[in-house]
């Protein structure tokens, strides 16, 4: 990287940059050498940044009209929808924006799983990502409580009660979280405060996430280390900027479809009924993006063990760089892992589906099988696969198989498969 040699052209630029090297940073971000074979699955980092900014901006505006009080919250949300100029639009963007954020983050996570982006030397990027994901879930959960509808209230009751599973101190912790003996006004006001805070914590972590990324540079679809800068890289600007911008436009079409055509399809009708502590809705379901974990929680017949299983399902991801023993990053060169990868994708989708269904009969059985498989994948299959799998030959550079300068025909074949993946 040429960071150290960079000097601004203008005298003022030099004067400023000597005192605060912002221009050096801008230059680094512009010239940042990026593998030239990044496909569209790599555009979701930019899309996620857009999602975060959208949530912060729309949330800031909503907070100008929302009233965090148990007696007024529900009405203030309807006031936003009916009276505030463009309030309906801003709220629908914010509510659907949460779903879009999770859609993008799941694609981003599964991209990493397929191409082995979590492996050395990128473990810290991955772990920061998992922390961001946890904070996203906390922010989304607390945000869902704020409209103070039936699902808000009972979702908050069920989730905070998860802490009561902790032996001895559990009940005390739940009372402390509530600020009372049930979910009530003190709970609402503190959730609002934290919901406002967390996006800024996420923003800080995103900076660390990108900083950590810029140390080793991007992984790429064939998962090899790339010399930087070289024939294998292109500057971030304009190549990646344009590609990211185009993908973002495509993503915004999907986003706009939900906002303008089916703004409530991802929500739950019960949340348009004001919170009532005396009546539990017949069927409590969390938002779609939490369903797989909800299915894991319900598939275990014991309360404490259910909570432990659910939390483990998330925290196990943080240990992934060490659970996956294979030296090869990309699934392109791992014929067996590729199959297990798709089974895992199916497994998570099945968990999501049964999480939305009542916890009984066949659904419960499926949830238990899928939960078992989820843990098997990470704790048994991945560690063993690294030793047993016969991986395909990996090319030495991104350019090599394309130019045909190599006798490594297998690698060239794999590259054609790559083309199909794009």
């Amino acid at each position, binding site marked *: 990287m040429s960071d150290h040699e960079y000097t601004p052209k203008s005298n003022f630029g030099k004067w400023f940059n000597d005192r605060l090297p912002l221009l050096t940073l801008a230059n680094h971000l512009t010239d940042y050498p990026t593998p030239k074979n990044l496909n569209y699955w790599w555009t979701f980092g930019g899309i996620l940044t857009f999602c975060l900014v959208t949530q912060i901006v729309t949330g800031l505006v909503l907070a100008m009209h929302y009233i965090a009080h148990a007696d007024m919250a529900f009405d203030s949300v309807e006031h936003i929808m009916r009276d505030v100029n463009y309030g309906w639009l801003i709220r629908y963007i914010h509510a659907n924006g949460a779903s879009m954020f999770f859609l993008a983050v799941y694609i981003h996570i599964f991209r990493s799983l397929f191409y082995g982006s979590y492996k050395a030397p990128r473990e810290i990027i991955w772990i920061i990502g998992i922390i961001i994901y946890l904070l996203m879930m906390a922010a989304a959960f607390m945000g869902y409580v704020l409209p103070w509808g039936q699902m808000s209230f009972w979702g908050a009751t069920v989730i905070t009660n998860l802490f009561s599973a902790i032996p001895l101190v559990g009940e005390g912790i739940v009372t402390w979280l509530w*600020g009372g003996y049930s979910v*009530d006004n*003190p709970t609402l006001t503190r959730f609002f405060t934290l919901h406002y805070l967390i996006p800024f914590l996420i923003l800080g972590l995103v900076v660390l996430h990108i900083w950590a990324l810029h140390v080793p540079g991007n992984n790429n679809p064939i998962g090899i280390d790339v010399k930087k800068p070289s024939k294998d890289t292109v500057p971030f600007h304009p190549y990646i900027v344009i590609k990211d911008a185009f993908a973002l436009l495509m993503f915004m079409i999907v986003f706009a479809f939900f906002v303008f055509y089916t703004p409530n399809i991802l929500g739950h009708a019960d949340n348009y009924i004001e919170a009532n*502590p005396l009546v*539990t*809705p017949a*069927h409590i379901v969390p938002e779609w993006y939490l369903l797989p974990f909800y299915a894991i929680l319900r598939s275990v017949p014991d309360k404490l063990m259910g909570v432990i299983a659910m939390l483990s399902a998330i925290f196990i991801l943080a240990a992934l760089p060490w659970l996956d023993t294979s030296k090869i990053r990309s699934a392109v060169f791992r014929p067996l892992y590729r199959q297990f990868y798709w089974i895992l994708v199916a497994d998570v989708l099945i968990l999501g589906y049964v999480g939305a269904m009542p916890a009984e009969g066949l659904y419960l059985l499926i949830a238990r099988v899928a939960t078992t498989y989820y843990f098997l994948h990470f704790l048994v299959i991945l560690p063993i696969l690294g030793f047993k799998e016969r991986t395909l030959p990996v090319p030495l550079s991104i350019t090599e198989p394309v130019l045909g300068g190599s006798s490594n025909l297998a690698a060239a074949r794999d590259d054609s498969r790559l083309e199909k993946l794009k």
Partner: protein
Amino acid sequence: MSEKKTERRDFLFTATAAVGAVGVGATVWPMIDQMNPDASVKALASTEVDVSSMNPGKTITVLWRGKPVFIRRRTPEEIDEARAVKLDDLKHPEKDEDRAKNPEWLVMLGVCTHLGCVPLDQKGDYNGWFCPCHGSHYDISGRIRKGPAPTNMEIPKYEFVNANTIKIG
């Protein structure tokens, strides 16, 4: 590093660290404790309920500390049923006699001990309550019989102020 001797400086370090730790603790605790139930929440600790109009077989739900409390006037058959259950069949063994001092009246927190939903009245496999959230079945004494809930529904502190009035809390 030669022979280590306790010096005046070591004492100062230890004393500073100790005072600092107490200071940090004393500053952090109010920040944590402010989230616990405040005086106005605690002040609403008891509720009186008039039950004079309740016939046997009827359940009412009243709000106490923001939580629902079920008050059921049980029929003689229900009392017999509740008292006939063997303790060995129970996940959380409790005698009905201990749960309903006056067998006709069952007063309990209408909160599922799994994750806090409000169970539905006269539903489920045991003719008592059924929690729609995650499928816990309770009997006519509010004891957990099937499903993920770990314990029986809680009995709050209550007393009959007179023949027609129950004071909860």
